[in-house]
């Protein structure tokens, strides 16, 4: 602790603060350079001037507003005028700033241009990708993931070239605008255990897995006949149907049963069996009320390009 030692304070020619620590450690009290002191006074003057121009002092539960020009910006369709503050300035800048105007013009250009032209124009694709990325992150990433890879069994992967509801821009736009209901009935009660195993065998065989030929043959009859009626949606070739969102079962891509992720053929059988037993009932919400047509158009282009649309 410091103690005031008047006698030691005056020793030597340099003034000290008069405090001494540990008996003899003292602090010099050298005068400041004049320019430093003036700079300090200048900051004091600056602060006082600042009070008059900008919001500064708390007064009760309010504060002094300062004399800077007020700022007017739009909230919805209404004009809001407020005292100067950086948030209002940002709002105004987002609405009327140079970049904001430029972005609106570009958005308008997207609206006025056909998909075919957008897709073949490198600069419009650049714009769509950068704006689309933000829209995707805000609206789609919660389910489909930041990169659009989805979650197997829950949310479709948008990065591959397999499209449940079609990969043409018009189809993607419809999906985004109206949403989709993915439905497949549960076959738990329709099939006996043996029939279920047969259908699973047939389905796995469709995508080139080594399966029991006899069982698959029986499964095929159920699949393509009235016993199961799978072909209603998946078609006789099992290549699926975009209009009802039925999956193509002949390729290597699985959106619900995690077949590629299972090591043994028995585990793959179980994964497929589970889907057939329980059916599918999932939903993608409609975005027409949440996004503007222009935003949907940009998102459509963005999603179309992710994996290579059709």
């Amino acid at each position: 602790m410091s103690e005031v030692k008047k006698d030691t304070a005056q020793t030597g020619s340099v003034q000290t603060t008069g405090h001494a620590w540990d008996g003899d450690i003292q602090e010099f009290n050298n005068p400041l350079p004049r320019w430093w002191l003036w700079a300090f006074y200048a900051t004091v003057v600056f602060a006082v001037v600042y009070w008059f121009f900008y919001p500064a002092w708390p007064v009760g539960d309010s504060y002094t507003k300062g004399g800077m020009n007020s700022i007017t910006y739009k909230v919805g369709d209404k004009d809001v005028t407020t005292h100067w503050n950086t948030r209002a300035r940002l709002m105004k800048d987002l609405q009327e700033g140079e970049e904001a105007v430029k972005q609106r013009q570009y958005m308008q250009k997207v609206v006025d241009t056909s998909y075919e032209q957008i897709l073949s124009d490198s600069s419009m694709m650049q714009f769509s990708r950068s704006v689309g990325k933000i829209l995707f992150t805000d609206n789609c990433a919660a389910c489909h993931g930041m990169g659009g890879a989805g979650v197997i069994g829950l949310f479709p992967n948008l990065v591959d070239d397999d499209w449940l509801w079609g990969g043409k821009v018009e189809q993607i736009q419809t999906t985004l605008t109206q949403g989709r209901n993915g439905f497949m009935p549960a076959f738990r009660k329709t099939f006996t255990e043996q029939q279920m195993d047969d259908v699973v065998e047939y389905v796995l065989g469709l995508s080139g897995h080594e399966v029991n030929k006899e069982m698959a043959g029986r499964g095929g009859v159920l699949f393509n006949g009235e016993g199961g009626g799978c072909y209603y949606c998946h078609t006789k070739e099992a290549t699926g149907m975009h209009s009802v969102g039925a999956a193509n079962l002949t390729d290597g891509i699985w959106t619900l049963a995690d077949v590629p992720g299972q090591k043994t053929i028995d585990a793959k059988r179980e994964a497929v069996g589970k889907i057939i037993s329980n059916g599918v009932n999932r939903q993608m919400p409609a975005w027409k009320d949440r996004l503007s047509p222009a935003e949907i158009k940009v998102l459509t282009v963005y999603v179309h390009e992710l994996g290579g649309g059709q």
Partner: protein
Amino acid sequence: MAKNAEDIVLFEERIPIYPRSVKGRFRTMKWLILLFAYSVYFTLPWLRWQRESGVEQAVMFDIQDRIFYLFGMIVNPQDIFWLAAILMIAAFLLFFVTGIAGRAFCGYFCFQTLWTDVYILIEHLVQGERPARIRLDKSGWSGERILKKTVTHVLWLAVAFITGLTFTLYWGDAYALFGQFFEGTAPFPAYATTLFLTLTTYVMAGLAREQVCTYMCPYARFQSIMFDNDTLIVAYDEERGEGAAGRAKLGKGRKTVEERHAANIGDCIDCGFCVQVCPTGIDIRNGLQMSCISCALCVDACDAIMDKLGWSRGLIRYASENELEGGKHRLFKIKNIGYGLVLLAAIAGLVWSIASQTQLSMAVTQVRNPLYVILSDGQLQNSYDIKLNNKSEKTVTLQVRIDGLANASLDLGRIRKIELEPLSSMNLFVRVKAPPVKGQSGQIPFRFVVDTVIDGKPVTEMKKALFTMRGDFAP
């Protein structure tokens, strides 16, 4: 604690300095350096240069479009490393020179020194030589004093304003900006910058002067660690000047060298000329001091006196401490060689970087979420964000292809033509497809290649990229 209120000193009062003018070889050299520096600084913004992009200023720092024009060279934001290299070169050049020649920068090249010199010159022209200025300041507020002081400060402000305005002109088209500035239509930053630099020039060169060097300049504080006994400093030859019986003014029996030597008196006649000419107000005869900026004006002053007396020059001269003590002056020391080598390496690096600058540049980032995806035909697909920069002043049409990845194909979607305007950049999202190869997993290196033609010459730019391969997905 202060005993009473009168004892509290809030600041150290500046002792006014009235540098006397001096003529000599170092003064002449300093005027020439100043003339050269001012010619470059004040005329450069007005110099024109023919460019295809229509920017006609030889040297212009275009912040808004993020392009710096330096004569035939165009510097883009991605060349920011050059700035790092230039700063490194500047730093090591400073260290190198400081190690050998002391504060040569301070004395001859620092803008604080240059502008202070001009301000002192104005002071001298308006108010007269040192004694006249001292007299003027001691006299009351006579009409003459008010007039002379006013003229001095107005001229100072004028120089400060031209300095500030010239600096501003580097950041826009000088001719247009100059007109706009006086019409009141120039952008706000132009006025702010000019005002700021006018004020700082006026305050630093007119009012603060040597205090900038003594109190504010960081280099002045740390330069001493680069000094050693072989560093050239402006030094007073104490042995010669003081003799055994110290210095003495010229007087009876102390007029010639022989008489003085007989009386053991040194060669310094204590005329005080070296102190009077010093812009930082120090007495070099007290030895090396932190305030000394090595301007060598005291050398000129002393030489002039010695010449007049017909004695040999060099009582105050550039010398190292070793030399003063009769030792040898060594230049090739590990420290100097080290600074020199680093300096050469930095210069070589910068020259190489500028010389190998391409007209077209490309950056490739692999999309990492997800790294790869399996397509319905069993192929693997990786995606990439490519940034293309056209640094030329031509509109170029680019062809993108890949190289070094077996059976792979590049998917640009439906984009057929990639066109880049002069000095512009573009982001391109592409996909690369390749069949999985058994036993080959991990990151497979390959290259993106961009071909174009600039000025009739084919230009090819390549960039390495990685393809995430999963051999276990092979059929």
